[in-house]
């Protein structure tokens, strides 16, 4: 940080997911100072929450955690978690970012991550990090790979009983913390705000989260993850080991009736991957993928898809139209079998995974002058010659912030955005 009224960094990276971290590391390696501003209590983004990743089936943690650790230990990188960008404006050639540090109610400096508070806390809350399938405490460290390993309290569920404060060996708990506003200056910014998944509640025909055993793909990631809620794949309805699992593709993508015309790009491959992982975890299970077009377009993806077919995953052409609860936790899927002599079919599955579409993770409206496309993702101005350029000088975009994107493509874009940012900084020197 240099002199001036506000702490100054060469680059502000908005979002500490895989794209943001990759961009930050690429910039830091060129000796630029970088601030990573993350709205969550931990960096790692969506990727750290995944099980394994296609098409190599590497465990996701094994790739994400080293990047997280590398960023958090890099002398040129400052990581600011649980921070929300309020505004990003331009002043005298610099970008000024007004940021709100949300209260953790636990001092980040004092907390040593011992989790004593968590064991003491009496309140159980559905743990969003586990797809809601298990509980967590009102005070907790987000998950075992989180960076930083610092506790935070969720005030909606805290009863101020004081047990955590008493248990804390370093007196880190502070119930009175308030949001704090601060401002950073930066020479350039990389927007890597990622995506959110379409809410399960949105699609009426798929039961709006009211049918037991209809889950989202991210929930399936948790079931498959080594740190998952059950440490194995079970039906959330009653703990049965499912032996008949279906995936429903384009659940909210390529669907103008849902207001999402675009393809979410990653769902085909993650469904194929999850089916493959399930066939490993549950070798006897029947696996079905209902799809319109399998979009296995990336390097090694088509071969991955062919392997899944060879492993016996059943691919059915056709969009599932309607889901209904069946007997005993079963889910009924209605679809049109397009084969000769086909027609409307009703299939029953133990567990149904919705490959829900991707929505932008962040809306710049009212925060900065970035514009968005018809798909509400950040607009890029030169998609063919400088794909990470936005309409704002010195502001670049990487990863799913500019449209759904898989990890490989996000990482490539993060490199490209870091390159553009370093060009920009160099030209100002």
């Amino acid at each position, binding site marked *: 940080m240099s002199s001036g009224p506000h702490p100054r960094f060469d680059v502000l990276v908005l979002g500490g997911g895989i794209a943001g971290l990759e961009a930050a590391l690429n910039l830091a390696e060129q000796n630029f100072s970088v601030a990573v501003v993350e709205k969550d209590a931990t960096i790692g983004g969506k990727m750290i929450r995944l099980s394994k990743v296609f098409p190599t089936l590497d465990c996701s943690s094994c790739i994400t955690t080293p990047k997280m650790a590398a960023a958090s230990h890099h002398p040129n990188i400052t990581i600011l978690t649980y921070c929300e960008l309020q505004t990003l404006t331009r002043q005298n050639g610099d970008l000024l970012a007004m940021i709100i540090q949300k209260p953790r109610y636990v001092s980040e400096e004092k907390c040593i991550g011992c989790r004593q508070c968590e064991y003491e806390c009496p309140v159980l809350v559905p743990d969003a990090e586990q797809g809601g399938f298990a509980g967590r405490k009102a005070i907790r460290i987000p998950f075992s790979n989180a960076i930083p390993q610092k506790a935070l309290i969720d005030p909606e569920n805290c009863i101020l009983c004081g047990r955590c404060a008493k248990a804390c060996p370093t007196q880190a708990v502070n119930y009175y913390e308030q949001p704090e506003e601060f401002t950073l200056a930066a020479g350039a910014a990389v927007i890597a705000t990622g995506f959110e998944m379409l809410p399960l509640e949105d699609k009426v025909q798929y039961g709006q989260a009211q049918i037991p055993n209809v889950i989202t793909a991210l929930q399936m990631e948790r079931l498959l993850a080594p740190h998952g809620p059950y440490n194995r794949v079970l039906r959330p309805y009653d703990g049965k080991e499912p032996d008949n699992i279906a995936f429903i593709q*384009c659940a909210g993508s*390529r669907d*103008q009736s*849902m207001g999402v015309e675009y393809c979410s790009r990653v769902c085909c491959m993650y469904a194929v991957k999850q089916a493959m992982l399930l066939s490993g975890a549950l070798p006897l299970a029947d696996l079905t993928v209902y799809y319109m077009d399998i979009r296995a377009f990336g390097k090694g993806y088509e071969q991955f898809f062919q392997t899944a077919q060879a492993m016996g995953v059943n691919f059915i052409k056709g969009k599932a*139209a309607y889901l209904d609860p069946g007997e005993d936790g079963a889910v009924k899927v209605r*679809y*049109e079998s397009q084969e000769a002599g086909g*027609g*409307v079919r009703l299939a029953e599955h133990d567990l149904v995974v919705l490959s829900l579409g991707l929505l932008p993770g962040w809306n710049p409206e009212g925060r900065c002058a970035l514009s968005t496309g018809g798909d509400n993702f950040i607009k890029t101005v030169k998609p063919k010659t400088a794909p990470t350029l936005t309409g704002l000088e010195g502001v670049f975009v990487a990863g799913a912030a500019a449209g759904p994107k898989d990890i490989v493509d996000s990482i490539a874009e993060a490199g490209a955005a870091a390159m553009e940012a370093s060009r920009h900084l160099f030209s100002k020197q």
Partner: protein
Amino acid sequence: MAMALVNLDFAEELKAYGVDTALECFNCGTCAAICPLLFEHFPRKMIRYAHVGAREKILEQAQDLWRCLHCGLCTRTCPRQAGPGELILGLRRFVLAHARRA
């Protein structure tokens, strides 16, 4: 239908009966499976016949068109907004006009 020849003039002919969005269908099958009739490939079958110009097929199977309840669920849920329900109404108009001409 062995080796039926695709006939694109039919799509033009249908426009006169208000069928103008059917080609936007991408054959996902939602309409067939959401239709309360739960009947074969209906209504996608009719859409597809309109696509490839299987005029005779539509005339042969005309009675199926009158099974439709005009409830509009297919049109509301169609991911491409191709209006399958409206297509059925249009095909009824076409068939009736054809019958009246005959």
